[in-house]
């Protein structure tokens, strides 16, 4: 029985339509690379979170995880669409997501790490949200109008994410003996991937000069302060002198990403060029 929705307005997906700015070709190339990096980041994290759907620790939190995943996938689409426009070769958001291989993906290593237990997922999310939130706040002031507009929209979502993951860190840190052990293990697993978020690649350094992206050292200060505050409430210690892994933003990934892409690109690769 198809319901009658005659009275309901036909809804359309919202797209950003700020035109691509008049960039010099080499700057445009940088903005394109960077937009892809941002898209890859929210995509892989959104994908990871979507793996939880149906397996969460309690129904209410299962839904929360999916909501965050949906926000990230929404952000992803805006970014890939922009990347496709910047490139101007007629590729689509799906070509960007489904037809690029591991070394072409430029997400930081953190987001491709497996879900692990709920503690690992929370810690990965907390490390990311604490970056993402302050980053988006600054990106709103980007000289690139589209990135600024996308940041403005995503910031609303991220404000909720950071609240959610911060509260969970506190609950797990200051919960039971077992939850504390687990969240400490998660910190151990994931902290080495936190540093890469703030390391600037050559592309990022150049874009900083053009005013397209914010200075990560500022964001790092906000991140440190937020992490310290939450960890204190969670009665957890912020790790010191940890060796930081990096390479994801330049295409050198951990082995996990290959498997993620194999799964998510399966249909597009098996049946090339079809509409779904």
């Amino acid at each position: 029985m198809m319901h009658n929705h005659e009275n309901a307005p036909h809804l359309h997906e919202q797209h950003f339509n700020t035109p691509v700015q008049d960039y010099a070709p080499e700057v445009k190339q940088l903005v394109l690379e960077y937009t892809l990096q941002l898209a890859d980041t929210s995509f892989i994290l959104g994908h990871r979170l979507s793996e939880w759907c149906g397996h969460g620790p309690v129904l209410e939190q299962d839904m929360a995880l999916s909501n965050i995943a949906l926000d990230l996938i929404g952000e992803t689409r805006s970014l890939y669409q922009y990347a496709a426009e910047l490139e101007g070769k007629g590729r689509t958001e799906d070509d960007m997501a489904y037809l690029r291989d591991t070394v072409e993906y430029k997400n930081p290593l953190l987001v491709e790490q497996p879900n692990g237990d709920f503690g690992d997922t929370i810690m990965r999310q907390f490390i990311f949200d604490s970056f993402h939130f302050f980053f988006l706040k600054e990106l709103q002031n980007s000289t690139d109008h589209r990135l600024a507009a996308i940041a403005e929209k995503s910031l609303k979502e991220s404000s909720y994410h950071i609240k959610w993951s911060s509260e969970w860190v506190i609950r797990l840190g200051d919960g039971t003996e077992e939850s504390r052990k687990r969240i400490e293990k998660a910190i151990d697993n994931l902290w080495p991937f936190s540093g890469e978020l703030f390391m600037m690649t050559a592309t990022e350094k150049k874009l900083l000069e053009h005013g397209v992206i914010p200075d990560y050292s500022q964001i790092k200060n906000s991140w440190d302060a937020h992490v310290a505050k939450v960890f204190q409430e969670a009665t957890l210690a912020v790790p010191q002198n940890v060796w930081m892994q990096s390479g994801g933003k330049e295409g050198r990934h951990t082995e996990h990403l290959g498997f993620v892409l194999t799964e998510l690109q399966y249909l597009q690769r098996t049946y090339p060029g079809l509409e779904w």
Partner: protein
Amino acid sequence: MEEVEVNLEAQFEEKVAKDIRIEPKDWMPDAYRKTLIRQISQHAHSEIVGMLPEGNWITRAPSLKRKAILLAKVQDEAGHGLYLYSAAETLGASRDQMIADLHSGKAKYSSIFNYPTLSWADIGAIGWLVDGAAIMNQVPLCRTSYGPYARAMVRVCKEESFHQRQGFEIMMTLCNGAPEQKKMAQEAFNRWWWPTLMMFGPKDEESPNTEQSMRWRIKRFTNDELRQRFVDMMVPQAEFLGLTVPDKDLTWNEAKNGYDYGQIDWDEFWSVVKGNGPCNKQRIQTRVKADQEGAWVREAALAHAEKRAQREQQKVA
């Protein structure tokens, strides 16, 4: 005392007959309460187990748009399960107990979810057929006699109509696509058609609970009535898609203004109900695993809430 009981029962029957909703604190016969808890919790379990066959395609969805739609859809099913557990909780059942009954095999859920999803077309077929059948079953439940159940169903039905549409859209895209996509769609249709017809439950003469449930207006149509409506609705849609209904006995019956359809394999139905479907074990194991692995999380949140409440109390003192 007995007289009071009789009186209450008469009042209850009268209210139901007049289509006045029964609310949680109203007097109701024990059997009515039990029937409702059984039916609502089964329904909730079906939503939750139903997340799994589709959920395993979220990570393989072929486009960003499809991925977002499917994730939102499966998430809705979690929501529907939640609304329904809430409705059952107003009758004094606890969610933990209902879930324990699901895990122990004591409580049932819709058998359709014990079939595997093998291709992307299955996601289309489930949305179109299975959700279509579910809506058929559910729309009358918006007027069921128990208030909280009826209200939960209103919410569910409102959300569910997008589910069927997205399934139909997937089927349409496949049927209008490349030959291998069309083949994928037909193959999925062949596998899902009969199990979907079984979703309406056993034949009326073999459905022990139907009569009482109809009288209490928990159920508003019989299994066979709904099944017939479903077939009549779906056959033209299949024709529109260019798909062949996998039933050589399907014929239009002018006299009854509906289709005659072939024999349903009831042996298969009962065998799946009894736990011998292709995925029964796997589905329950997955649910049990999620529940067990979540136990420490639920415990921690509660422990933290207690600690915080204590601290606040100390502050006040």
